[in-house]
């Protein structure tokens, strides 16, 4: 861990906020991606079986 001096709180919170937002974005994207993919597969199966 580098010595962050007086501004440790600021630097760490900036990194925490940013990385948190990025991870949230990826998680939301992947969750919706998975859900849509499953729904589409179900719909296509329905379509094939008539």
């Amino acid at each position: 861990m580098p010595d962050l001096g007086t501004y440790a709180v600021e630097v760490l919170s900036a990194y925490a906020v940013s990385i948190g937002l990025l991870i949230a974005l990826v998680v939301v994207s992947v969750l919706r991606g998975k859900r849509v993919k499953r729904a589409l597969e179900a719909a296509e199966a329905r379509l094939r079986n008539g």
Partner: protein
Amino acid sequence: MSFWEYANPRKFMALTDRAMPWLFTLAGVSLVVGLVWGFFFTPNDFRQGSTVKIIYLHVPSAMMAINVWVMMLVTSLVWIVRRHHVSALAAKAAAPIGVTFTLIALATGAIWGQPMWGTWWAWDPRLTSFLILFLFYLGYMALWSAIEDPDTAADLTSVLCLVGTVFAVLSRYALIFWNQGLHQGASLSLDKEENVADVFYHPLLLSIAGFVLLFIALVFYRTRTEIRARRLYAIGLKERMANA
């Protein structure tokens, strides 16, 4: 084979299916290396202390926040002119990423501003134009989610994106004018040419590359989702027609 071949959803899906793992790996590696390098292995600035490390998040996200909008503008234009669905859906997929980057830029800027300028927020032209960019993203996304039919939504959001771009640029220059009209010379902006020395520059470049790659990976991934969602919508319509 021309570039436009990838406007075919099938071709696009096939290409991105192969590219996805590579893109996510590359994005992850360059982001992690860039940020770790910047966070652990760069010296503190003699004036800013350790807060200089925030630059590795702030500059790339701010840059990308604008570039994402430009990408949305280009894809909207392609949709209007050539009517390729992939293009319109890519614009839709990009907006939430742009919002996130804008938020990161605003948040890290505020956190940096508190110790350095002594305030979380100043009505500086740059800061204010990012706030307005954030509002434009929100409006754009709200319009997408308000309209059910995907083609209508694509048309209307494209028009909004074009008009919005003009007004966003106008606002940018209006804000410069507005702020100078209030307090001349009190510019708070970073002068990059002066501030960024080589030690900071190389990890910064890597972290910018990381943000760009992450955006490309995410936009491909989300566009794939949107293509599937659109197909799902079409199947749903067909089923309802058959049942009616």
